[in-house]
């Protein structure tokens, strides 16, 4: 039968599509293939069978993505142990194969996935370790995101002589709270201190980026509420009176706190000059 140019191309692309769909399925969901089925698509060589040729791609696919997830979730991988982490990862990738041009997005659903698949999801009394894993995953995703997000770094940091009215938080500044000491644990892992898994204990942390470098700072509960209020109102005076009114801190004492915090936070570079 005579085929014109365009239908010839269509036939060719149908064949290409069949090969690619088959091969992708074998990478994402490897199955026991017969010699005949594999050799429908792949040539054996004198050194390797068709299945062995395919297996090189199958191994690399999962190994590459596991390595990428381990790099993005260093803390979680440490906490779970690399083998269990890989099992979670395989399960995750089965449900969320990458659809992005960049590996940077590979783990973007991971915390959500852990929450959805926690073993005690439908129980009323829940275990605490899944909470820890989920919080750690959220935290590590946030860190990756903060590291590479677009932001104006051309800022002027506040100095002691600036007035309170000139204070503004850095463009990348996250005021975080967790049920576990997530940031302390994470820092211990990346500094190779091999920490024990922590007990439940509320933590308060600042994650900021300054001159393209990330910083993590532990704060206390009062500082957390102060900064949260400051973040939404951009007024030191309002944040101070919020603390006085909501937590019953005497105004004089609050002034003393602020004096101390102000100096420490200027040194840590929390604030830019509000121009």
């Amino acid at each position, binding site marked *: 039968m005579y085929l014109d140019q365009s239908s010839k191309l269509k036939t060719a692309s149908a064949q290409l599509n069949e090969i690619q769909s088959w091969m992708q399925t074998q990478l994402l969901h490897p199955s026991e293939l017969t010699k005949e089925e594999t050799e429908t698509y792949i040539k054996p060589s004198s050194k390797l069978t068709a299945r062995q040729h395919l297996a090189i791609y199958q191994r690399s696919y999962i190994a590459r993505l596991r390595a990428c997830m381990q790099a*993005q979730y260093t803390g979680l991988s440490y906490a779970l142990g690399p083998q269990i982490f890989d099992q979670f990862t395989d399960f995750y990738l089965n449900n969320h194969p990458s*659809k992005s041009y960049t*590996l940077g997005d590979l783990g973007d659903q991971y915390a959500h996935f852990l929450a959805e698949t926690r073993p005690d999801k439908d129980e009323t009394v829940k275990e605490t370790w899944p909470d820890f894993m989920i919080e750690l995953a959220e935290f590590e995703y946030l860190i990756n995101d903060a590291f590479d*997000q677009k932001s104006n770094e051309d800022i002027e940091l506040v100095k002691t002589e600036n007035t309170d009215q000139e204070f503004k938080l850095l463009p990348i500044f996250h005021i975080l709270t967790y049920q576990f000491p997530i940031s302390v644990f994470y820092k211990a892992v990346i500094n190779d201190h091999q920490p024990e898994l922590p007990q439940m204990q509320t933590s308060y942390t600042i994650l900021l980026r300054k001159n393209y470098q990330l910083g993590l700072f532990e704060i206390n509960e009062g500082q957390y509420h102060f900064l949260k209020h400051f973040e939404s109102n951009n007024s030191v005076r309002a944040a101070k009176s919020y603390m006085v009114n909501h937590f019953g801190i005497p105004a004089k004492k609050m002034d003393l706190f602020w004096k101390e915090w102000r100096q420490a936070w200027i040194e840590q570079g929390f604030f830019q000059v509000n121009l």
Partner: protein
Amino acid sequence: MTIDKLPNLGLGLGLRGEHFNHILEHKPAVDWFEIISENFMDSGGRPRHVLDQIREHYPVVMHGVSMSIGSTDPLDFDYLKKLKQLSTEINPVWISDHLCWTGVLSINSHDLLPVPLNEGTLEHIVNRIQVVQDFLERPLIIENPSTYLAFQHSDIPEWEFLNGLVAATGCGLLLDVNNVYVSAFNNEFDPIEYIENINHQHIVQMHLAGHQHCGDHIIDTHDSPVVDPVWELFRLAWQKTGGTSTLLEWDGNIPDFDTCHAELLKAKQYMNGLVGDIDLATPTDERDLAVSNPIDFMVTKVANSFVK
């Protein structure tokens, strides 16, 4: 713009995060750098900031891994827009990607998967290269990937397939000499015939890299020095092309900058002299199961980026 306007940039290195500080501090005498495009698209952190400084001192080329020119999925114009946006911002000397597909049904395997080499896929990829070149308003440079299997539906040698792409689209070629060696070993073709027959006028760039020999197959790991037979193939390719921009890729177990640079400069020893009989055998080196195209160059190591 056609490829004959593209310059010979000399000897370059793949830009890796591990070397950022060294490059900024010492401004080493390397001729040019190649970046992985995807690492800098949508990026506003330190890698992009460093790149902007490096661009002031060195020519830069964009090398991509996610165009998926061989896929039957429609071309991803969101991706192409971001690629073009980056090229507008950083002004690379050229843009390259691979003769491969990375996935279908919108999935990205993040691997450079081989295409069946036949008339039908040639036409399919020719059409797509033309669309991409029109969109980017510049020639695309296509690299031969490392391959680990051959399809029953392949009946054209890879070099002839690439020459077909060149003839129909005017695209340029990035000849990865190590990939020729790796694919030739795995799929039992003659790498010398490949290098002798590929369209030398259209080779804009060459790649060199190390690999891992696993006995019955070779994995392209980019984690070790270039082996002697690959250097010999490079000597042949250099002679055939009359010399072209050459770049060393080192992506796993990345040593310090000077070690990478010294490995690159070995290329000078192979630029002259007669091509003798090339001994293609390399010793097997037994290590753990290797992964092709290691991810080190595709993910940012954020853990190193904290204020000390």
